[in-house]
C-alpha cells in the first residue's frame, strides 16, 4: 500500500496535485518519529543539587583556600574578583571578633571590644569604603569590593594569633615591641594587598583617594588588635 504523493509540480499548479491525494482511514502510515531530547549533558554541569553535601562543602572550601593563597601573595590577578564569595570574610570576621573578645573576659573592666562591635566595624567599614570607591568613579561591583576587603583582613587575623601567642610568655616590654612590629607589618600588608586588587578598577588619578579610607580601616582594626 502506498501513499499517493504529489510529485514536484510547476509552481502555479502547486495545489493541483493535491486533489489526487486520497488516503483511506485504515491505511497505516509508515515512518519514524524522532522527538529531540533536550541535551542532558548541559544540565549536568550546572545542576549541583544532586551531589553529596561533602562535595559541595569541599568545593567551596577549596575556592576559599585558593583566595587565601592569593591574598598571601598578592599579584595582580583577577581570580579573587571573578568569582567572589563572602564565606572567607565571614570566617575571618568571626574568628577575629571571637579572639578580640576573649581578651576582655580576663579583665574586670569593659576595656575590650565586644563581638558585635568588631563585627559591625568590619562590615560597615567595608560598606562605606565600597560606597566611597563607587562614588569616586570606580567600576568595581559592590560585593566584589566587600569580598576583597574581607579577604585582606587575613594578615591581621594571623597577627592576632601571633600576638596571643606572644602574650602568653615573655616579658611585657619585649612582647609589646614584638606585637607592635607584627601588627604594623600585617596592617601594611593588608593595605598593600587590597590596593593591588582594587586599584585597577579606579580612575588612575584618584587612587590615593581610594587607598586612604582603606588605610584608615585597617589601621583601626590593627589598633584594636594591638590594644586588646
Amino acid at each position, binding site marked *: 500500500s502506498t501513499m499517493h504523493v504529489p510529485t514536484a509540480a510547476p509552481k502555479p499548479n502547486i495545489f493541483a496535485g493535491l486533489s489526487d491525494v486520497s488516503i483511506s482511514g485504515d491505511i497505516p502510515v509508515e515512518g519514524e518519529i524522532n522527538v529531540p531530547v533536550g541535551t542532558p549533558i548541559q544540565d549536568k554541569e550546572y545542576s549541583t543539587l544532586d551531589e553529596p553535601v561533602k562535595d559541595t562543602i569541599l568545593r567551596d572550601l577549596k575556592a576559599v583556600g585558593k583566595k587565601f593563597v592569593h591574598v598571601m601573595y598578592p599579584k595582580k590577578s583577577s581570580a579573587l574578583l571573578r568569582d567572589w564569595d563572602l564565606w572567607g570574610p565571614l570566617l575571618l570576621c568571626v574568628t577575629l571578633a571571637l579572639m578580640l573578645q576573649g581578651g576582655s573576659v580576663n579583665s574586670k573592666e569593659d576595656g575590650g571590644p565586644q563581638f558585635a562591635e568588631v563585627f559591625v566595624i568590619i562590615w560597615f567599614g567595608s560598606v562605606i569604603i565600597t560606597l566611597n570607591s563607587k562614588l569616586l*568613579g570606580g567600576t568595581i561591583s559592590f560585593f566584589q569590593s566587600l569580598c576583597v576587603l574581607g579577604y585582606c583582613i587575613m594578615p591581621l587575623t594571623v597577627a592576632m594569633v601571633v600576638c596571643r601567642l606572644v602574650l602568653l610568655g615573655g616579658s611585657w616590654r619585649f612582647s609589646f615591641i614584638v606585637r607592635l612590629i607584627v601588627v604594623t607589618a600585617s596592617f601594611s600588608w593588608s593595605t598593600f594587598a587590597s590596593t593591588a586588587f582594587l586599584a585597577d578598577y579606579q580612575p588612575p588619578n584618584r587612587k590615593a583617594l581610594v587607598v586612604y579610607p582603606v588605610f584608615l580601616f585597617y589601621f583601626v582594626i590593627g589598633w584594636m588588635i594591638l590594644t586588646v
Partner: protein
Amino acid sequence: KMASSDGNKNTNTEPWGGFEDNIIQGTGSAVIDMENMDDTSGSSFEDMGEMHQRMKEEEEVAEEAEATEEETGEDGEFLGIKGIKGQLGRQVADEVWQAGKRQASKAFNLYANIDILRPYFDVEPMQVRNRLIESMIPIRMINFPQKIAGELYGPMMLVFTLVAILLHGMKTSGTVIREGTLMGTAIGTCFGYWLGVSSFIYFLAYLCNAQITMLQMLSLLGYGLFGHCVVLFVTYNVHFHSLFYILWLVVGGLSTLRMVAAVISRTVGQTPRLILCGTLAALHMLFLLYLHFAYHKIVEGILDTLEGPNMPPIQRVARDLPVVATAAMNAVNATVKTLGVILQSQ
C-alpha cells in the same frame, strides 16, 4: 499610555459598542489602554474595561484558589476547577509579581540612588590637599561672598580620621565607657558634631538671611575639623598642658577664623554677623576643648601622681598601655612617688 498602532476607531454609535473592532484589538495587542482602564461609561472601549475587570477578578480568584490550596489539599472536587484556573492564576500572579518588582525597583532607584551623591565626590587628590591647607588660612575679604567648595569627600574622610584619632586617644587614656562601646561613642560624637552643628548653623544662617547652602556648610565645617585632627593627634601623644592650650588657640583659632570669615562674607548686617560668628566660634573651640579633656581625665590623674615637685615634666611612662595593665602602672606610680620623696628629702 497611547493605544496600539491600530488606532482607536470610534466608529460605533451604539451604546453597547460593536464587537468586531474591539475584540480584535483586545486580543491582538498586549498593550492595555491605560486611559480606558476605568472608563465604563458606555463608550466603545467598554469591552476593554470589562476585560480588565475580568482579569482582576480572575486574579483575585486565583489568589484565593492559591490561598485555599493548602487548606483543601487533595480535595477532589476542588481540583477540577483548579486545573484550569490554577494555570491562569499562576500567570496572573506572575504578572502581578513582575509589576510589583518593577515598581519597587523604580522607587528604589529614585530614593536610594547613590548617583545623587556622585557629583559631591568628584575631586582630585590635589584639590583635597589644597583645600586642607586652605582651611587653616583665613581670608580677610568679608565684603564679597567667599567661594566655598561643595564637596563631601574631604569632610567625610576628616570625620573618620577624627574618629580614629579619638579611638587612639581613648585607648591610651583607658577611658571606660559603661553604657555603650568605645567605637560607638567616637562615631556618635564626631558625626553628631559634624551633622548636628552644621544643621544648627544652617538654621541660624537661614534665620539671619545668610547666603549659604547646607552642602556648603557641611563642607566648611568638615574641613574645619582638620585643625582639630592635627591638635588632637599631637596632644594625645605629647602631654604638655601648656602645649595643648597654645595649639588650641593657634590652630583651633585659625580654622575657626577661616570658617567665620567665610560665613560672615555671606551675611549682611551687623547683628546677624555677630550672632553667626559668635555661635560658630564658640561651638568649634569648645568642641576641641571637650575632645581633649573628656578623654584625658585618667591620663592627667596619672600624670599628677607621677610629677613630684622636683621631677621634670616629661614623664612618658607607658603611654600605650592597654587597660589590662593598669595594676602594673599603679605599682610603677608607687615606686616613682617614693623616688620623688627620696629626691625631695635630699
